[in-house]
């Protein structure tokens, strides 16, 4: 006898539907799984046998051959367990084949037959809908995630016994209605009202949020660089539903969706330690590559504290995703593209000891040490940073005062308005930072005075073509924040303050 059951396996941030074909024939009893299963799938053999036995269901004393199609795709994870068990029951004639049609099964079995949640439910549900599948059987914990997909009947299943009863028509199960939660996920940000002083840095943060500009903060230890960075997700406009689904899909595949959360609605904030490996940053790993920090920060903030301490190779790999907003990883035979559209925020000290230019403590570094420290950031990497800002030590008055700055909510409203202008300008949810040279030329309209000022700046600072474009982009964002249609000299002047200034260079 033969049975065919559908399941899915994650692939990048997508999923591929897998057809589980099961054939039973008399002969020496055994269960063999073919079709490029990985270790977890091969081990399903033991879980299925125990789960069937402990659910009071027959495990046929027959020669069972399971094939996973497409045969050239590596099948990962324990999510195929349920489909395998159902396929065995179907092939043994316990479940009629017509009940198995048009249905996707996803879930890991425990030895007692309970169904456990797995990663990648949302991508599989999306792939199922794409393929015109109408029903999906998943664990109870995974059901809300699958129910994010409209037009798919999601049946929450506690255990194998219930799945069997449902498929044989012995038990009715009500599908979980399609639902998009309004909120979800832990809050990722701190309120700007906590920040004392640092008006200059606050302003830079606001510009970064408004135009999607990458930002580096330079200052001695303990002046609030990390705190400021943590405020950034809170002044970005809330995720749109489409963005939230993209983010959730990534976290689902990575297995990082918090329990009880079906949809992530907060902007991600990722702050990897500087010892992070190349694969941890951009994604990779054995088998099918898994998303790295830059992908986990998609539509959010990637914060790199102690920027020059990061492995130079790791920083250099950021160059391409900063440009393309995605990364393609190719490993033995598989090529996966992950989205990676994030705002980069770097924090660093002005010198190795941390106190160069500080008002209170002397710097103990030698000039060549300072030079070496700054040389860890390559020119091409720094070219992708639009904003540089100093975060100096607070004065006594500022320290003693209350955190009197504007709360995030107020700033977020200005950012939202500025982003709205950009959306209208580009006809898409793009930001000023994503403009190419042609678009810079088209969209940056300067007043005569502004043009004169910029001309003088080019001569005075010896600005390169790239630096010139960068200043125009930032100026446009500053103008957007003021809802000005033309870039005026004060916008240019402010943008000039944020140009990169390396220490220890003449």
């Amino acid at each position, binding site marked *: 006898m033969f049975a065919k059951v559908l399941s899915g396996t994650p692939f990048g941030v997508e999923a591929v539907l897998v057809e589980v074909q099961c054939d039973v*024939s*008399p*002969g*020496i*009893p*055994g*269960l*063999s799984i073919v079709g490029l299963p990985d270790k977890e799938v091969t081990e399903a*053999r033991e879980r299925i046998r125990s789960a069937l036995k402990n659910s009071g269901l027959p*495990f046929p*004393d*027959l*020669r069972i051959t399971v094939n996973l199609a497409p045969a050239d795709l590596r099948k990962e994870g324990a999510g195929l367990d349920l489909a395998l068990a159902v396929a065995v029951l179907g092939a043994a004639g316990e479940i009629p084949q017509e009940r198995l049609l048009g249905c996707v099964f996803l879930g890991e079995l425990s030895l007692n037959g309970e169904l456990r949640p797995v990663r990648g439910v949302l991508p599989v549900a999306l792939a199922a809908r794409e393929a015109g599948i109408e029903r999906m059987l998943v664990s109870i914990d995974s059901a809300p995630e699958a129910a994010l997909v409209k037009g798919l009947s999601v049946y929450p299943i506690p255990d194998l016994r219930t799945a069997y009863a449902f498929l044989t028509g012995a038990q009715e199960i009500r599908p979980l209605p399609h639902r998009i939660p309004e909120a979800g996920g832990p809050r990722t940000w701190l309120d700007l009202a906590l920040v004392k002083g640092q008006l200059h840095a606050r302003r830079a943060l606001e510009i970064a949020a408004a135009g999607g500009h990458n930002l580096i903060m330079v200052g001695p230890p303990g002046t609030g660089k990390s705190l400021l960075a943590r405020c950034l997700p809170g002044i970005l406009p809330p995720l749109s539903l489409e963005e939230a689904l993209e983010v959730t899909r990534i976290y689902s595949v990575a297995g990082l969706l918090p329990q009880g959360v079906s949809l992530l609605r907060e902007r991600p904030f990722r702050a990897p330690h500087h010892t992070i490996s190349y694969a941890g940053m951009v994604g990779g790993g054995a088998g099918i590559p898994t998303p790295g920090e830059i992908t986990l920060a998609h539509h959010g903030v990637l914060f790199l504290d102690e920027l020059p301490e990061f492995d130079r190779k790791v920083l250099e790999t950021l160059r391409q995703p900063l440009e393309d907003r995605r990364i393609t990883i190719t490993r033995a035979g598989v090529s996966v593209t992950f989205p990676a559209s994030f705002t980069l925020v770097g924090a660093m000290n002005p010198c190795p000891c941390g106190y160069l230019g500080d008002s209170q403590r002397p710097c103990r570094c030698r000039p060549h040490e300072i030079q070496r420290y700054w040389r860890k950031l390559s020119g091409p990497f720094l070219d992708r940073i639009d904003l540089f800002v100093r975060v100096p030590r607070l004065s006594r008055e500022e320290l003693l005062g209350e955190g009197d700055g504007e709360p995030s909510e107020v700033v977020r409203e200005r950012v939202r308005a500025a982003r709205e202008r950009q959306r209208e300008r580009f006809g898409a949810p793009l930001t000023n930072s994503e403009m190419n040279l042609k678009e810079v030329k088209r969209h940056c309209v300067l007043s005569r005075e502004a043009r004169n000022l910029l001309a003088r700046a080019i001569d005075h600072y010896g600005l390169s073509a790239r630096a010139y474009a960068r200043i125009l982009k930032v100026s446009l964002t500053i103008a957007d924040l003021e809802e000005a249609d033309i870039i005026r000299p004060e916008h240019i002047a402010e943008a000039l303050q944020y140009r990169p200034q390396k220490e220890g260079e003449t």
Partner: protein
Amino acid sequence: MEWREAEKKACEYLRSLGYLIVARNWRWRGGEVDIIAKDGTTLVFVEVKARSGTGFGHPAEVVDARKREKILMAAKAFLGPNTGRMPVRFDVIFLLGGEISHLKGAFMEGD
């Protein structure tokens, strides 16, 4: 209990269940099996294990990978070209003191 006696008891037990005894102590090259019986249309290869007590471990522990391999080889040899023509099962019968326990489908190929 001596093994001959244990196997006799096991055969009696199987007959009482309606099984048909096909062969006993069947061996071929590296393979050997205590009892071959027919349960309806299913051909059953039975391993018999007897212990007077659990002092030397439960009898179930004795059917190890090597033993299973021997039984599998015997089964393949016995079936020969008839492999796949009829359902097959591997059972283990334990005799512990005076009690008989029967483990149906105790293992399969690849365990």
